[in-house]
């Protein structure tokens, strides 16, 4: 490959390098200059994690070919402050707790810095608009807004520098707003995530993924790939011991790489370890797989019908797990009801969208221990599963949790660490695999979608007499956390209310869709979305205030939960009281009285906006729209 000679200035230093012409500015900064503060979150200019300044303008470096950066002045997060120091903006992020996982934070700090450089007195609306191109998945942005406003006021001299320092401690560090100890490394871009780490002699792994939702693998021909210069090894399920292959949080139904058939689009089929990323990608394209497509099932209710395609042989009815919860006498409860409501609710599959795509490194250490370093949320269980699959004593498998750029449950599944480990064992060289965003989206689990049929009986005074709750959920192609999600959904199903008669069923079903897995609330939100909607519908029918109907039914100390656990503590009464007071709630029936309410638009709300048309750039005399 012919090289491109490039001269530019990076963080006030002249840089002159030869590089590959296909590189983006982001690749050049990260790979050639080892400036890994700019991250690749999406590779498509959507998320802003790769933001840098080019000639003073905020630019998404994943969208700029490196050749275009020739002759420019680049400023990255590493160049904002002298090593060991922080700018007021970075200090403000540190002070307010604006960094959580930290992966979006270098880009966010760049965007925030840009906002105040463009307009040092920017108001909150303008700040929000100027941060609009940067996604944060952890913080809910609120502490970030606070940080930018704090930095603005300190820089302007409106409030003293000391406002950026930690508050003095009182008599205890419990209950004290200690600043996050990991924040300085995050706001300065110094913290290295798995994709930012380089090891000597390291190979790059790339994965061939299934284009079919359900197909038999007739043959895999890797010979062309293996013959390529720079390819060090090619992996298929033949490289995994068949007897022990299989992982999962509850049921070990997922092979390291597809074995015999593929069950969802994006499933790993083969992998190539090569001297560099481009070679690995080219080699993957040369692997020839012959598939025989199979009929697929794409709807959980269809999947339970007789004659439906079977996703896993061990589960002929495609049911991953059914959890029943019974309490009291449901029929008697409904018979005793003054009013019975019945309805259906559904929720969608949701992507975790952690800003850090999956990434990892595996190597064999001098003690013949296979080490896997990745942002795994469950290194303990992964160690167990991988030791079993590889037939190694457990102390010969070591998992290190690298800095996690957001997880939310999505990094509990061992969907790539097995391939990395086997490649390292086969080559005895460090091996790295960094997912693209697209790869992360098709290969990782999602929040379980749900369909809930709900029946609730109540007395005129609002007391619930019985609930029948039936949730069906698409678990997708592999079991992952489905069992636990169904269990938690069932346990929490009918909400924080003491219900004496109930019948709850939750069922997860295999299909050939992208798998569903662990996701923050683990079934709890799907179930309680249905319950809380029903509570308001019941309040409307009974002409009760929504707080009141909840108080009539709420769990108290001594209440028995849906699984008949007697509570020794319960705080819902205090939560309801505080919510009612704090929100200045105007009592009344939830019957579309929004227009007539007097509690709207307080100074504890934000102003509504017209997206993209809210402020003009004051520097220009014409009314240029900025967003």
């Amino acid at each position: 490959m012919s090289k491109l000679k490039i001269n530019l200035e990076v963080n006030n230093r002249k840089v002159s390098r030869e590089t590959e012409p296909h590189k983006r500015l982001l690749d050049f900064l990260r790979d050639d200059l080892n400036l890994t503060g700019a991250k690749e979150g999406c590779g498509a200019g959507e998320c802003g994690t790769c933001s840098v300044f080019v000639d003073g303008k905020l630019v998404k470096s994943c969208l700029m070919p490196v050749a275009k950066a020739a002759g420019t002045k680049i400023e990255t997060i590493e160049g904002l402050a002298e090593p060991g120091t922080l700018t007021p903006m970075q200090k403000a992020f540190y002070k307010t707790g604006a960094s959580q996982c930290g992966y979006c934070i270098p880009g966010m700090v760049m965007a925030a810095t840009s906002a105040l450089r463009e307009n040092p007195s920017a108001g909150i609306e303008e700040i929000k608009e100027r941060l609009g191109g940067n996604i944060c998945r952890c913080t809910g942005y609120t502490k970030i807004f606070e940080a930018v406003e704090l930095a603005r006021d300190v820089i302007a001299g409106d409030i003293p520098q000391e406002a950026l320092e930690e508050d003095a401690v009182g008599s205890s560090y419990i209950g004290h707003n200690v600043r996050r100890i990991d924040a300085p490394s995050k706001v300065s871009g110094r913290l290295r995530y798995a994709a930012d780490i380089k090891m000597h002699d390291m190979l790059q792994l790339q994965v061939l993924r299934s284009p079919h939702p359900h197909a038999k693998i007739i043959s895999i021909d890797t010979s062309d790939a293996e013959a390529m210069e720079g390819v060090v090894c090619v992996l298929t399920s033949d490289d995994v011991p068949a007897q022990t292959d299989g992982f999962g949080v509850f049921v070990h139904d997922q092979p390291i790489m597809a074995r015999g058939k593929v069950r969802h689009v994006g499933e790993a089929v083969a992998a190539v370890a090569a001297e560099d990323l481009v070679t690995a990608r080219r080699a993957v394209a040369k692997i020839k797989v012959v598939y025989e497509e199979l009929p697929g099932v794409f709807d959980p209710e269809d999947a339970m019908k007789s004659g439906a395609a079977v996703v896993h042989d061990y589960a002929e009815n495609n049911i991953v797990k059914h959890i029943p919860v019974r309490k009291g006498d449901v029929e008697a409860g409904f018979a005793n009801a003054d009013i019975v409501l019945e309805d259906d609710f559904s929720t969608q599959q949701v992507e975790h969208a952690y800003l850090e795509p999956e990434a990892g490194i595996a190597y064999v250490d001098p003690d013949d221990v296979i080490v896997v370093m990745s942002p795994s949320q469950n290194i303990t269980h992964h160690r167990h599963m991988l030791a079993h699959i590889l037939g190694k004593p457990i102390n010969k498998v070591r998992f290190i949790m690298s800095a996690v750029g957001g997880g939310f449950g999505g990094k509990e599944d061992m969907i790539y660490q097995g391939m990395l480990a086997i490649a390292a064992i086969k080559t005895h060289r460090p091996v790295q695999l960094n997912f693209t965003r697209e790869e992360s989206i098709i290969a990782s689990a999602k929040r379980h979608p749900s369909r809930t049929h709900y029946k609730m009986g109540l007395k005129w005074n609002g007391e619930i007499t019985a609930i029948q709750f039936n949730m069906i959920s698409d678990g997708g192609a592999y079991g992952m956390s489905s069992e636990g999600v169904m269990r938690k959904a069932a346990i929490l199903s009918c909400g924080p209310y003491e219900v004496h008669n109930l019948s709850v069923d939750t069922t997860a079903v295999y299909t050939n869709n992208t798998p569903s897995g662990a996701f923050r609330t683990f079934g709890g939100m799907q179930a309680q979305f249905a319950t809380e909607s029903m509570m308001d519908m019941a309040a409307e029918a009974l002409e009760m205030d929504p707080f009141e109907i909840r108080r009539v039914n709420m769990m108290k100390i001594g209440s028995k939960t849906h699984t008949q656990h007697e509570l020794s503590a319960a705080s819902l009464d205090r939560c309801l009281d505080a919510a009612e007071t704090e929100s200045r709630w105007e009592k009344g029936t939830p019957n579309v009285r929004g227009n007539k309410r007097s509690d709207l638009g307080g100074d504890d709300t934000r102003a509504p906006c017209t997206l993209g048309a809210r402020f003009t750039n004051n520097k220009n005399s014409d009314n240029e729209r900025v967003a």
Partner: protein
Amino acid sequence: MERKLRGRGIAASWYGIARTATIDRAGAWAELDDGGTAKIVTGVTEIGEGILTLLAQVAADELGIKPSEVTIGDNDTARSPEAAHAGATRQTYMIGNAVHLASQEAKKHLFEQLAEHWNVEVDTLQSFDGEVWSNDTNLRITMEKAVAICKSRGVVPVGSASFTAHGTGLDPVDGSGSPWQTYVFGTQVAEVEVDTYTGEVQVLGIWAVHDVGRAINPRGVEGQIEGGVVQGLGQALMENYETVNGHTTTHGFAKYILPTSLDIPQINCTLIEDKDPLSPLGAKGIGEPSLVPTAPAIMNAIYDAIGVRMKSLPATPEKILQALKDKVPGREHFVHAAREQRAQAHRN
């Protein structure tokens, strides 16, 4: 109908803390180190929620040093004791208590040596923020000195602990069981504005009230609530991973829509501290529970604003417009029927 209509809704919620329907456990090691610093070693920690800082606070408070003097070694199955996994709203509860107990043991060894050295009763000793003293005496030294004295007597002040939360499995027939040791509750109120021309919903305010047991780092708790609320808002209004015959149609962030800074309501947090009686710290957890009530509170607010009940998430502009178009006057009819029935029942 006016173009832009506002409304409010509420939702309550509950959640269990730590792993479900099983015996959860976590281990930790502690050492009071030279210079009056400390080492804490435990199996898993940070995924962004702030647990590292929380553990430093817990250790510092128990040992009597500053959080900045605590070094945490973690996240390595071959170099640290098992602490299970980073999820299930379990880290504060499980690992926080394990670190608290391990620190307590390390301090006990130090205090025993120091009490003998000073010839005072061990229970007169206290430490905070880098100093150790004996109550009602003039004996007061730095933690650095205290550690040196302890070591000069041949004792390295170390501790280890395991914390357990007892849950039981569910009965396979009726599901009965005690899946968690402790529960949290919460309530959120949402205020929305719906544009009836475009179907767009803006959430203008959220009042989030959550019981966290004990707020070790209040700002960190707020951060978890704000993040949970915004993920809940995303699921409520825009996020939708879609597939057609198993092939995704939302393969990147251009198609998979996420909340940005322009979508964020003012989030007003209120923390309720109903201390957990079953654990030494009294703290519970907040990571997952903060997300649970957001979507139903928003849907209830949308109903309050425009009278259509969104029962299928997400409530996208397209769905809202369709629902407004299809709006059947059935709900009012139903309420009227219920009222009639109730009046009838009253007469009987």
